[in-house]
């Protein structure tokens, strides 16, 4: 291949995880532009669960709940880096609370893939943005719903 990708990038490019759409998704994120060659759609299903963390004991008997990403899928048109980052973000975000998922940034994505070629860091590393867009789409929908 023309660009020197890490083994992990190649793995996710050739065998991407969680490809597809979620019908009636709770949130949909979209980033990129076909003119630039990379477009990503991220679909999330959000559910509530009891908080498992240590904080729970401090809150005592009060019911503590959080929203988390129960399911996540992607559809991407783009280069190997665009596909690989889309795939890895679905793995990074799945089962994370929305607050945790919102903290995932471009560097986390690149690191999880054992790095991206410098030229791809900027143009094709859009997956974190797509995820954040999906979460904010969910939050807006929820606000409007109320």
């Amino acid at each position, binding site marked *: 291949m023309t660009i020197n990708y890490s083994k992990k990038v190649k793995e996710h490019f050739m065998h991407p995880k969680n490809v597809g759409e979620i019908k009636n998704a709770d949130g949909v994120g979209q980033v990129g532009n*076909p003119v*630039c*060659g990379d477009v990503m759609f991220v679909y999330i299903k959000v559910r509530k669960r009891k908080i498992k963390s240590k904080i729970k004991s401090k809150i005592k008997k009060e019911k503590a709940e959080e929203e988390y990403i129960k399911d996540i899928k992607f559809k*991407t048109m*783009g*280069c190997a880096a665009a596909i690989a980052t889309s795939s890895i973000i679905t793995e990074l975000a799945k089962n994370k609370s929305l607050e945790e998922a919102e903290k995932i940034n471009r560097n986390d994505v690149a690191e999880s893939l054992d790095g991206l070629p410098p*030229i791809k860091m900027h*143009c094709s590393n859009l997956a974190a943005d797509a995820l954040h867009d999906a979460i904010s789409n969910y939050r807006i929908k929820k606000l409007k719903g109320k």
Partner: protein
Amino acid sequence: MAGKKIIYLDNAATTAVDEKVVGAMRPYFNKVYGNASSIHMLGQEAGKTLEKSGNEIAKAIGAEAGEIIFTSGGTESNNLVIKGLAYANPDKKHIIITRIEHDCVLNACKWLQSINQEYKVTYLDVDNEGFINTKELEDAIRPDTFLVSVIHGNNEIGTIQDLTAIGKICRNRGVYFHSDACQSFTKVNINVKKMNIDLLTINSHKIHGPKGVGALYIRNGIKLNPLLHGGGQEKGIRSGTENIPGIAGFAEAVKIAMKNQIKDTVKMAKLRDNLIKGLEKTPGTKLNGPIGEKRLCNNVNITFSAIEGESILGYLDKEGICVSTGSACSSRTLEPSHVLLAIGLKPENAHGSIRFSLSKYTTDAEINKVIKTVPKVVGVLRKMSPYNVHNLYRDKK
């Protein structure tokens, strides 16, 4: 990669060196290793090979012996024409080229402009198949035009320009006419005298010769300023000890290609057309460039809608199929191919383009394998794509 059979369809990038060419080069590494400028017998023998090789190449393009100088390749020859002619004609400041030239022509012109803002470059538009309009060329010639440079066979979309028509105009108007014939050389007949070509760039590694050697035909009487100054080799235009093994290999490659020209080009054109027919069966595809005789016999360039070229390339690579793409994602500049944009492709279609370039070694079985594999790869990527396959973006031209 070990043990895997490779189907190499990137021959417009470079070709495999013919075994006979390797054989022809061998003695010049460690038997006849003299410097062609030396007076002793090893030098004289190298000098004879240099002369013989020049003659072989001159013959192939209808030039006279002595009108060929050897360079390091197409890039150097094209740079030498543009810069060398500019410096030799300092009173003239206008160049005409096309929008679909190779980067080395485009960037050599840009460099000239960067050192002297008086230089003006006219870029001739092309139609949706990549052809220039000769009327437009005629209108663009000015009193201070010193050069018209038009690529013969386009490296990306295979368009073959009518050099005879262009040559006639340039000769009548008294401007030098150069053509970059790296892709077309030995595939399309070229006669520099009949076509009124003043300067012609050709190279070796596109025709199963070694890399690092090319040539420039310079019509007798045309003065060029050298890019390299030194011992005065190659009539003082290109100093530096001649690359005799490379030059001998280049000449051998030309000899073989010219001997088998009809057989090889007919075979490649047939396989090219089979490949086009086979690939066009996949929905959402479009051939870029012309069809038939006005297309290089070894070039196929196809846009696949809703997906991106680097990805297609990556999946085909995994299947052992080597191709190239006009997508921005695979270029150093992150810009889609200027050639595809010039023929009116929208950037989103240029991103999804793949070039398959054949050689004399390409077989029926290989083409059939490619025709079977491409739809699978395209299908996998389209399943990932958010866009509708049948919705090929409408192009501008």
